[in-house]
């Protein structure tokens, strides 16, 4: 076999094969944890992470609502391109454990404001417009429930009763919509707000949220301040924030997902970093004499440093591949099992790119100390090492 620096690196890594395999496994597990948890985080965020939309909710929070009459006033503001309103039905199907996300919305304006997130066809909007009890169901929810277009479904609301006191709402599915991206949450349904607000017993024309699409180039922070200032002295004060911040705040009601992910991944990587760095230091120390001989033969300290760094890079590259392969296998299984909790659970290119950057960074960090040791090693001292 022809001698080359890459052969030297390969031979060094395979001379203690079990140790190298264990290190690769170790790194692979760390990247598996990273891959799964980051996919969870991305899944929770859904498509909201990329949008400039604003969300207006009650400043009081909780289940407090806002009057629908705010809509034309918000629409009239200078920086607003479009606005829609959302009322949560807070409902379940058949039994109380089978909760579904259901919103009463104005379908036309909702489709415009969320056009980058969801694909609503003209046909499904026309079909929904023709029937007051029509609903549009997200693909994930439809698949989970086994629903299809034309089906009639009954939702029982925890809070909203119909005029007669009955909390059961019967709807007909007019279409099934998809998300613009594979991580977009489509595990909810949309009912017609005009029907809901006519039929509901209490809180008529009160909504949970307004979704705002700002005009291109508009200062969204200034716009948010302007909206909140508009209702600062009203009976229903508002809190306007970006959709991303709103979603994060919403999720943080249950747990600080981002912090949890960072903590677990951080602990996993810190442990791996110490194990790999320590092992590499010992591995290089075992080769002190060989490094001395290489230097005697004319290999510069820098060249030897590169060989050591390349070894850690190869270890991390193999560990990364293993970790991502495990993640790719695990994610579909987890996505199936946790469909109702994390609807958009996928291994995204963004997670892969982040993992790649982390692998390079950690490889350099782990290889730094042993390679610097190799660089500094005095030849005469190294040759005495047996």
């Amino acid at each position, binding site marked *: *076999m022809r*001698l*080359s620096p890459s*052969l030297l690196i390969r031979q060094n890594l395979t001379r203690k094969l079990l140790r190298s395999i264990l290190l690769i496994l170790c790194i692979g597990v760390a990247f598996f944890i990273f891959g799964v948890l980051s996919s969870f985080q991305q899944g929770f965020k859904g498509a909201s992470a990329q949008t400039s939309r604003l969300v207006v909710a009650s400043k009081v929070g909780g289940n407090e609502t806002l009057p629908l009459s705010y809509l034309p006033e918000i629409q009239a503001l200078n920086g607003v391109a479009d606005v829609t309103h959302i009322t949560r039905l807070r409902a379940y199907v058949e039994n109380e454990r089978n909760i579904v996300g259901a919103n009463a919305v104005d379908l036309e304006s909702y489709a415009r404001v969320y056009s980058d997130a969801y694909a609503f066809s003209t046909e499904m909007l026309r079909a929904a417009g023709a029937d007051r009890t029509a609903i549009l169901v997200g693909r994930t929810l439809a698949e989970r429930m086994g629903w299809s277009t034309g089906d009639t479904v009954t939702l029982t609301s925890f809070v909203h009763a119909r005029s007669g006191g009955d909390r059961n709402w019967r709807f007909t599915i007019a279409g099934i919509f998809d998300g613009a991206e594979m991580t977009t949450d489509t595990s909810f349904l949309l009912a017609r707000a005009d029907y809901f607000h006519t039929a509901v017993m209490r809180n008529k024309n009160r909504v949970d949220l307004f979704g705002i699409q700002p005009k291109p180039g508009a200062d969204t922070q200034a716009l948010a301040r302007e909206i909140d200032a508009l209702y600062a002295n009203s009976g229903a004060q508002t809190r306007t924030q970006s959709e991303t911040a709103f979603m994060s705040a919403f999720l943080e009601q249950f747990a600080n997902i981002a912090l949890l992910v960072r903590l677990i991944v951080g602990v996993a990587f810190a442990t791996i970093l110490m194990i790999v760095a320590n092992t590499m230091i010992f591995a290089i120390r075992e080769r002190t*004499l*060989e490094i001395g001989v290489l230097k*005697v033969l*004319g290999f510069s*300290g820098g060249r030897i440093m590169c060989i050591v760094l390349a070894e850690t890079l190869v270890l991390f590259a193999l560990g990364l591949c293993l970790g991502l392969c495990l993640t790719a296998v695990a994610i579909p299984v987890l996505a199936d099992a946790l469909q109702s909790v994390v609807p958009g659970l996928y291994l995204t290119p963004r997670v892969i790119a982040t993992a790649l950057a982390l692998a390079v960074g950690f490889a350099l960090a782990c290889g730094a100390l042993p390679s610097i040791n190799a660089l500094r090693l005095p030849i005469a001292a190294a040759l005495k090492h047996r």
Partner: protein
Amino acid sequence: MTSVSYDIELNGVYKSYPLGKSRIPIFEDLTMTIPDGDFLAIMGPSGSGKSTILNLIGGIDTVVRGHVSIGGSMLDKMSTRALTRWRSEVIGFVFQFYNLMPMLSAAQNVELPLLLTDLSAAERRERVHTILDIVGLADRHDHLPSLLSGGQQQRVGIARAIASDPRILLCDEPTGDLDRKSADEILELLQLLNTKLGKTIIMVTHDESSTRVAKRTVILDKGRFVSEEIAQCA
């Protein structure tokens, strides 16, 4: 390179090693000249400074005071980078315990210093083949060091030392780990490299009988040369 005379000169060398908080001097004012093409054997008790002389000449250790000059190059004035390059071109090392890379074959060990040259893979392969032929290991190309005898490993070590065609070979007890027969074969090989290829050889040894192949033998004690013998046949 062949037109330059690679005389080795150590001039007023002071060298000491740390021992706790103090320093123990090895050489206080060592001056010696080794002419190009010489075969010098250095003998002496342990701790007399034999290996230190090799390290100073090979540029892997530095003097505290004085100068080491080889072929007009002042080693103590060179940068680490320049010294590394110079060493790869001028010096070949032969070690007592061979110090071969255990995971590389005999041919790959010999090829190792050639990775630093501009030779193509084919040229490197051809040179390795020639050198292994010179040291009598043409049929052991693909053997790992662990599959070779001590004598054969030392031949690979010598082949590696001469692979980049250095002018000077520094041999630190090259027969110290070998039986008599293997030792004699190695000594004959070194003599051949000196007489036929004109390599300057400086050999540190404890074995008096090894000095028979050298042109000169010096005995070192406590950092000073206490006697010198010039071989009759030289």
